[in-house]
């Protein structure tokens, strides 16, 4: 039985695929196959919430030196659904402070940045708190991701360490009434020492092409 590569080579030989490129037929077929088979699922959207603030300044260090709360590094890469890195995406994030309060008067814990040439980004912040109303809304960071030629993504990142999930976000994610999928709950890596613990969370983002 012919494999996928054999089929593609046969297509070239029979003229049903022609290569018009400065690259070799082998390279082009490999790229064609990669694009055909390597696809990513778009990041699930989540609600914008009522605390988005327009005109957020460009800033990826949201944490001030003596801020209370667990220091947090959020990082990741932006892809499209074909798996290609999106190098011109703007990521805007906003969150509460460690006590669960949004800054409505200023821009504390709000920031935005352009991804780098490989589509990667990072923000320095703190782990947000629960809302003070004791609702079951879990700790979260809002994301707004925009890139030319792609659907705008509004979503939220949640923390697997949130006590609401009781250590099992796959099972308990729906305890948060706004969370429809466990995909948005990310593992938390703790580094440092007990006197200076630091959290790191990776959040890859996948945009749909227009």
């Amino acid at each position: 039985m012919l494999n996928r590569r054999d089929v593609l080579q046969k297509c070239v030989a029979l003229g049903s695929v022609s290569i018009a490129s400065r690259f070799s037929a082998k390279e082009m077929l490999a790229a064609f196959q990669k694009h055909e088979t390597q696809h990513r699922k778009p990041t699930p959207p989540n609600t914008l919430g009522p605390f988005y603030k327009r005109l957020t300044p460009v800033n990826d260090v949201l944490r001030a030196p003596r801020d209370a709360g667990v220091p947090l590094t959020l990082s990741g890469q932006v892809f499209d659904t074909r798996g290609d890195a999106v190098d011109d995406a703007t990521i805007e994030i906003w969150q509460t402070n460690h006590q669960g309060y949004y800054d409505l008067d200023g821009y504390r814990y709000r920031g935005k940045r352009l991804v780098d040439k490989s589509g990667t980004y990072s923000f320095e912040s703190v782990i947000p708190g629960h809302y003070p109303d004791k609702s079951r809304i879990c700790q979260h960071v809002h994301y707004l991701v925009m890139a030319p030629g792609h659907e705008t993504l509004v979503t939220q990142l949640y923390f697997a360490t949130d006590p609401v999930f009781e250590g099992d976000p796959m099972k308990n994610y729906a305890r948060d009434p706004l969370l429809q999928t466990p995909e948005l709950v990310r593992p938390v890596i703790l580094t440092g020492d007990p006197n200076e613990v630091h959290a790191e969370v990776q959040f890859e983002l996948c945009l749909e092409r227009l």
Partner: protein
Amino acid sequence: MRPNLALLLLFCCLGVAAQAQTARQERSIALTAGVSLADATLSHSGNLVAAICSDRLVRVWSAHSGELLRTIDENGKLPSAVHFSTDDRLLAVAYEIAVYEKGAIKVFDVGSWKVQYDLATPFTMYTLVFSPDNHRLAFSDFHNDTEKIWDLESGKNLIDISPPFGGSVSLSFSPDGRWVASADGDAFVRVHDARDGSLRSATKGFTLEPTAVAFFPDSGKLLAGGVEKTISVIETASGNILRTIPRQPGVIWSVDVSPDGKQAAVVYTSAERFADINHLMLWNLDDGAVLADFKKQGITIYAGTFVGGQYFFIAASTSQLSLWSLR
């Protein structure tokens, strides 16, 4: 306290008392045990109350007698929004078919309770509002950025007025039916032409989300407010903010303008506890004076309407639904 200051305060209080209105509970309706309200609306005439109940039923009562007129059960589908037409003859109910996704809107004839219009929507809608002639219905959600105007007669002509992102939690048709205003999640108040969906104006004066919009009777101005806690008077054509009403501690939940354009009823909610929707202020739009200031713990204010120069509103506690008036 110094005597002169005391005297000054006494005169100030007398001045306020002379024009202050007080809230009076007109009627209360006992809720079925174990059933709470998710949302409720009052008809434009103040005669009917419709509520989304926690048992997935929509109940409609007479506001005057408290009689239960109808219970609407769409095979257990979860209602997400209710709204009466301006002539009280239609009741639109939005339903969730799949969580945050597939939805439906059904428009019932008030009286026969037959479904007059039925629309499948790509997502669940949370805001509904009829045009003044009741021929069109604008709807929106805040999750998937859908915001459309539905021509009820043709059943097909859907005009898309969706914002770039963030959806909308409040829509308002101008009294002349020409414009539809939206309080959009991306922190803009937009005014679209209700006939073709073209954008007329976008107010840039907000940085936080506006959550409530309502037109003045002349259609030339509208009121809007939201998380910024300030009510703004906006010119429809330009989107320019003409003036503001003094900022209060609470986030603005809803606004209504009186038929003479001289008063605004504003419901506020706590910025820390969004569920505490229990503060209502009546403002004199001419001079910015407070005509009434009503706050009551343990209730949620859902909706209101001006009838004959008086403001009526509905509120609910865990056990009863109440109709209130400002007198």
